[in-house]
């Protein structure tokens, strides 16, 4: 039976019942112009790489902080040491005597490998399944002035996201996820590579394009701060939208429990 033929009231009823004899089955995409609230929300690859990056994020921030504490001053240009003018003196203690930096460095680069492999799996799968085009690139309907203003204002006021956001990413999500995954994350890797004397011996442009070793370090630090800011807004929005259902969707793939999906 084609759902388009059903009377709208009847369709509403069928959806509300959500019972096994209803023509609306989870995973069906026959509902025209309306998304199925019982459909799979996040693919397995998205879920697994998401949680890998939750761990990576924590490891990156902790180990990066441990490394930063050895010299919490930022410079611009090629060189910078004590005795040279700095760009910013961060209000942090200079910690040299604790044994946190060596393990921090080990952890930072191990995390970078995990993040890189997981990111590659995500990127290849996202291209293959059209996840980026379908779910991450802003839709034409999102790009109206009214819509943009509303979604930005919702975020700025930390308003509870509308229920339809449980089915698809809103404009702000699309733009920020896109910027984080295809802007900030690659930028962190490139500025990280720029600090490696071994990698820059092969690709000097990685560091010269930033104006030098210390510039790359400073940019690495500020981009990390943007990522932490993104994380804080992201977690806040998840809590506002309903921490349980959003986490369930990112773990099981579905925003509602299996029993209710029947």
């Amino acid at each position, binding site marked *: 039976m084609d759902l388009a033929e059903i009377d709208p009231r009847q369709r509403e009823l069928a959806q509300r019942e959500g019972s096994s004899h209803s023509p609306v089955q989870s995973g069906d995409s026959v509902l025209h112009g309306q998304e199925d609230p019982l459909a799979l929300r996040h693919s397995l690859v998205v879920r697994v790489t998401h949680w890998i990056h939750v761990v990576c994020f924590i490891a990156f921030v902790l180990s990066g902080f441990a*490394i*930063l504490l*050895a*010299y919490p*001053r930022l410079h611009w240009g*090629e*060189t*910078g*040491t*004590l*005795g*040279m003018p700095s760009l910013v003196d961060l209000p942090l203690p200079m910690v*040299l005597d604790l*044994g946190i*930096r*060596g*393990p921090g*460095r*080990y*952890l930072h*680069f*191990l*995390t*970078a*490998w995990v993040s890189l492999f997981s990111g590659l799996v995500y990127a290849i799968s996202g291209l293959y399944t059209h996840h980026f085009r379908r779910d991450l690139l802003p839709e034409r309907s999102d790009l109206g002035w009214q819509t943009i203003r509303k979604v930005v204002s919702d975020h700025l006021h930390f308003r509870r996201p509308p229920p339809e956001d449980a089915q698809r990413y809103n404009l702000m999500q699309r733009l920020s996820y896109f910027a984080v995954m295809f802007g900030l994350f690659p930028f962190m890797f490139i500025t*990280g*590579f720029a*600090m*490696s*004397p*071994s*990698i*820059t*011996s*092969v690709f*000097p442009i990685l*560091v010269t394009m930033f104006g030098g*070793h*210390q510039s790359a*370090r400073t940019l690495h630090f500020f981009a990390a701060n943007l990522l932490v800011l993104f994380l804080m807004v992201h977690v806040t929005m998840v809590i506002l939208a309903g921490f349980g259902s959003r986490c369930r969707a990112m773990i099981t793939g579905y925003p509602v429990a299996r029993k209710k999906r029947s």
Partner: protein
Amino acid sequence: MSDKITRRRIITTGLAAVTGVAGLDAAAKIADHYGLLAPDHQGIFGVGESLTYGAQRLLTAHRSMAREFSRSEISTVSPVNHEHPDYDPYQRLLFNNFKDWRLYVDGLVARPMAFSLNDLKSLPSRTNITQLNCEEGWSYIAAWTGVPLSLILNLVGASPNAKWVVFYPFNDFWGSIDIAEALHPQTLLAHGMNGEDLSPDHGAPIRLRIPRQLGYKNLKYIARISITDSLKNIGDGTGSAAPDIGYSWYGGI
């Protein structure tokens, strides 16, 4: 799809785990054969260390050159983290301006040799203006003058089986580099810095200068160099004192 833990699932997972471990072991053996396995490859951090070392060795296999700078870019300050040893025999040798100091080179060599500081200074030297990057985050540029390590390895007749070069300084911070880094044209036994003799705090009489690696690999106050095909029986087998205090053996990033 059932979420129950079935016997089949346990067996499949077990087999996958065994295959994974065996695969890693085989990968480590192959990597070691091609000189792509770091000495501190054990443990969970060893996975990241091995990937970093292997990847960077492949990337730099064509003897990529560290960036060099112009004289005008030489930094006005060049800090050190630790001052020179205040104990003997270093103090005694320093008091005599290193006239009694000898650099001993032994191991897998045809002719073990001892070089005085004047011997080294009379050998062909090279000056590179490069940046020293400390793992702490700071960096400076200086001109280092010294003998290419490859020249010393030729003079003593290093064996073709040599895989590692081990450095023993007057302090406890011994270390090693692989033969690829040792034969690199920018790798120097530096006895001069910014046109003067290397100062005690910067590692007099000679320090290792490898500009493709971080500052802590550029060992100071060197007394003896030993060439070997295995690091297993030296210290705890991890190739340097660095892993003892939590640092990676490889300092390329």
